[in-house]
């Protein structure tokens, strides 16, 4: 049983169990949940939808994982998504023939740059001004909606420049294009964290800020750039969101995404107390959140109950994550060998 013990000790084990459980539930109770068809050379089906619709949250969760690892939080990412969407939409423009006002690549870069600047603002407030992260990012969370509205002149901008639709609606080798973006961002971030000492420094700062300062780590700089990176991720996510619906709505784009993304990170095993972080866990977390949403829709659960169901599942997964809870349950069932 030693291998089982090692397995259950891995942080990613319990999120994977939860995901497997959700999928198994669908296998038995949701007709055709796993059926995948090929239409016009692309794969279609619920599972593909989960990947496609989950991509924006997964992108956000990459940045948030690092923020939360520093014992911080960024609740402005939803608003930054709206800003990014607004900027890219205005620069591409609503020309009905689909001729972009500025080159699409330029528009995308500009949107991401603005988002990075937004993240830097958060980083400055948290690291240099010393504001509590939740307050610092609350400012941008509120103001960001306003900024997004201003960029789009408080209107919903519709886009017709087809190439831009690739990000949110396109397919590559049968899979949604956005999932490749997630894969690339995840891989690059993982390399930056685990093939340099950045990951170690971030964990050190999250576990013990004072001791990390005493050990010669420049915590302020590190925290600043982590928030800037979260802004970057939100910017990229905003591009995908805008491209998926080919419109930018300052009021609704990315609304509530920060909560889903934070949820994904926490379900994935990264503690809100900072410290050790799990990028792949966060991805599994995002998939759990998205699968749940899709399941609820597929099941025709009335919307007024849907949120309660979601809350219940999240509650269960969080309990499963808690070692002390598992130990208590193990105690209840006598000598059964549950991950001790």
């Amino acid at each position: 049983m030693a291998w089982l013990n090692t397995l259950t000790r891995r942080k990613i084990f319990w999120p994977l169990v939860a995901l497997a459980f959700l999928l198994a539930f669908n296998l038995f109770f949701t007709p055709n949940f796993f059926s995948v068809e090929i239409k016009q050379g692309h794969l279609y089906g619920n599972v593909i939808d989960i990947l496609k619709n989950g991509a924006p949250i997964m992108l956000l969760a990459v940045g948030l994982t690092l923020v939360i690892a520093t014992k911080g939080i960024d609740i402005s990412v939803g608003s930054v998504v709206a800003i990014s969407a607004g900027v890219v939409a205005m620069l591409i423009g609503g020309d009905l023939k689909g001729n972009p006002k500025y080159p699409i690549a330029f528009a995308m870069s500009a949107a991401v740059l603005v988002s990075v600047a937004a993240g830097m603002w958060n980083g400055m407030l948290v690291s240099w001004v010393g504001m509590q992260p939740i307050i610092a990012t609350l400012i941008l969370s509120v103001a960001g909606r306003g900024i997004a509205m201003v960029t789009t002149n408080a209107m919903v901008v519709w886009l017709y420049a087809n190439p831009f639709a690739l990000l949110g609606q396109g397919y590559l080798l049968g899979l949604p294009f956005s999932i490749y973006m997630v894969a690339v961002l995840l891989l690059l971030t993982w390399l930056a964290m685990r093939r340099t000492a950045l990951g170690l420094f971030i964990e050190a700062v999250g576990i013990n800020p004072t001791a990390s300062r005493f050990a010669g780590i420049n915590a302020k700089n590190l925290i600043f750039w982590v928030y800037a990176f979260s802004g970057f991720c939100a910017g990229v996510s905003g591009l995908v969101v805008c491209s998926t619906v080919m419109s930018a709505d300052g009021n609704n784009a990315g609304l509530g995404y920060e909560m889903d993304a934070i949820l994904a990170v926490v379900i994935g095993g990264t503690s809100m107390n900072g410290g050790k972080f799990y990028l792949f866990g966060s991805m599994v977390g995002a998939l759990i959140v998205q699968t749940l949403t899709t399941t609820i829709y597929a099941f025709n659960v009335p919307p007024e109950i849907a949120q309660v169901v979601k809350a219940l599942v999240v509650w269960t997964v969080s309990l499963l994550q808690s070692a002390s809870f598992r130990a208590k349950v193990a105690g209840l069932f006598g000598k059964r060998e549950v991950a001790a």
Partner: protein
Amino acid sequence: MSDNAPIVELKKICKTFPGVKALSSVDFRLFPGEVHALMGQNGAGKSTLVKVLTGVYRQDSGEILLEGKPIRPDSPLAAQKLGINTVYQEINLCLNLSVAENIFIGREPKRLGRIDWKTMNGKAEEVLKRLNINIDVTKILSSYSIAVQQMVAISRVLDSSSKVLILDEPTSSLDETEVAQLFKVIKKLRDEGMAILFITHFLDQTYQISDRITVLKNGEFVGEYETGNLPKLELIAKMLGKELSEFSYTTSGAREKKPDTADDTAAGTADDPAAGPADDTAPLLEAKNLGLRGSIAPFDIALREGDVLGFAGLLGSGRTETARLLFGIDAADQGDLAVKGKKAGISSPRGAMMAGMGFCSEDRKNEGIFAELSIRENIILALQAKMGASKYLSTKKQLEIAEELIASLRIVTPSANGEAKQLSGGNQQKLLLARWLCTNPIILILDEPTRGIDVGAKLEIMEQILNLSRKGLGVVFISSEFEELLRCSTKIAVFRDKVKIAELEGEDMNERTIMQTIAGGR
């Protein structure tokens, strides 16, 4: 002043925490109309005793008598209702409310269900006048100095039912004039018959204000003395748990000098094989007139290759504060610091590290160890920070470095990959030492590296200090144990009440002289 019966009497109080006997059969008496100082080193049991008296902890055995009747306060509030009030070091007041509001919070005078501001402000002024303080009570508290805030905190607990006032380190953040102001208030209250328990680390203040002293040591009652009959030197000896006669004038047990330099008693540098003529080379670390207001008075320090500079002093004497300035944790507001003759703009620990320094904090848990990181990661962290994030040490290389240090420092752990929190105190201390050793420092500052660890580990740490000095490092060694200082140091700096008062060398390096220097009777 003490002919009458004690107002508070603690009899044979015992309190055990898991693994620690915090108080064993401690007696304590407090009389009305006296200021009673509770003295003791770290871990003596002062705060535990106060917490038992104020209902924060429940004693395992023993009894508390208030005016001869046994009481069992089960919370600070219950103690307050009995007339035992405490003003803590960190003032528990609302800085954003007015002085009057702070005094009457929770018991505001009301009229027709609304707060009667006029009466409240009037009464507040009255209460403060009793303490000879005339201030505008409608201004917010934060607009006044900490001393005034302290007195507002005191006035809060002064009403007719108040019999006992406990002041826990009330002067630690006050300057001289503020202390004088506070003492005036304390004396006035004493003269009115209040029993005052005063806890402080400042020796001089103890003698200025207290009528009686109780000394604790390692959770045991050492004795109760009239302040006037207890010379300072004797008090220090009692706090350290020694008889005066035990203190020898010889430097026996002191650092063994190399045979060829044994006759040289004056210069610490003579101990050093590599330094060459001392006058030509700049010291490794030189502080000139370095100081920070409210933390440590300006001091000079010169540390040469192979020096072990011991810091002696009682708790709160300014040793740690000095170390913090040297390592750039606190920014000095005056003076210069030079490393190897180069003025080092050391304004952060990172800057100090880059200049070749290392610092092991006395507070291992909060300022040293990363509990959830592996031992390996804990060890290489400073080195990695020094090298920069991009020059990542591979896990293999990390393991090599960590395992080498684990072996050479004899850190007891099944694996370098275990979490640091599993290590015992002594091994955590060695871990911190390992963290700095692998950065190849030229100067190492060790703040109480031997505290709270077992005897074997203590000896090993001291052995390391001597080793490092032989290798030519400059070491600052802070310890509350004079024997340890004498064993390792080439020079000893003595601190008292946030001032570096002397530097002892050669024949002066003995316990008696250190004690006399601290007592100020040299």
